[in-house]
């Protein structure tokens, strides 16, 4: 069970950034997806600090008009949020393996 977690993270991260320069619409879409995933992770009370900082970096870059960096940071935030969601769901049962009985 434990090994599939890193696999899921790697998969989520390997989204190839789009070739042409990102524009505001790309940024808005990427940011919305990242924010949704991050809200879901927070809802499961398993948010990661790096998700929060990646999301903040995306917003800062987006506000500054640097949409390439903003999209990259938003994608990263989304990947991190998804990984934390995966962690929360898999740990629902996985914790028992560690329990001292």
């Amino acid at each position: 069970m434990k090994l599939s977690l890193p696999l899921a993270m790697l998969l989520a991260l390997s989204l190839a950034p789009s070739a042409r320069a990102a524009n505001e619409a790309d940024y808005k879409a990427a940011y919305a997806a990242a924010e949704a995933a991050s809200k879901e992770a927070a809802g499961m009370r398993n948010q990661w600090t790096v998700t929060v900082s990646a999301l903040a970096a995306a917003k800062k870059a987006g506000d500054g008009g640097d949409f390439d960096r903003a999209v990259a940071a938003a994608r990263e935030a989304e990947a991190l949020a998804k990984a934390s969601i995966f962690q929360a769901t898999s740990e629902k049962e996985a914790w028992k393996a560690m329990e001292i009985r």
Partner: protein
Amino acid sequence: MKARIHLLLGSLSAALVAFALTSPRVIAADKVDPVADAKAFRNFFFQKFPNVKHEDFVNGPYSMNEDMKRQWQEKEEFPPYEFALDAGKEMFATPFKNGKTYADCFPNGGIGIRQNYPYFDEKEGKVVTLELALNRCREANGEAPYSYVKDEMASLTAYMAYTSRGKLMDIKIPDDPRALAAFENGKRYFYTRRGQMNFSCASCHVQSPGERIRAEILAPALGILNAMPIYRSEWSGMGTTSRRFVTCNSQTRAVPLEPQADEYRDVEYFLSYVANGLPISGPGARP
């Protein structure tokens, strides 16, 4: 880019640390059995560290390393929490605006009772910690609540812990399904991996107490809250159990919950219950 490396590092370390603890006894259904859990928990540490005296476990990292223990004993001659202790004693005796004091809110005037906290409040159906009870006492007497994390709350709990020094931890679980659920929820929180580092409390305090993580010697989980609140040289100040939970979370890159979140109250309930019979040694001095 940097976060990605950390991500790989986190998942790699998790994979390395993964192992299944052999479970000496297999329980049929997952019935919550705190007595059995506590016995297994204690035996795990007594067998893993046969030459550590049982009551020494409450001294955290100092029960695991002689050189550190000597530095601690030198500090204990005139400990850095001395000021918080005096401040707590003074505050405890200072009446509220309405003339009442903390003594009116607590059994036995609040003296020598820390070993019974946290307790399960059957009216509320939830675990109530000492910090929560203190703030509720303040609010009941028209005073503003204190921060759960340090300063005044740390001084008050330092004094109350001091009046219980040496008494044995005595946490009760009433025959109430909600109490058993709180205990189980605390146990689950303790063993659940979180944060990008993918560590649970057990990853450090069960699998590798006595070993170093960067510069710090890891304390065993058994009796880990008996010395609370603690003066940490790293904070160069006092901190309550809540502050320790919040900082531990952020060190695994998990976003901390509110200081008195249910999960924190339940994990404190679990950790205190399994330490029943071990002496209160608060307030403590730690690295």
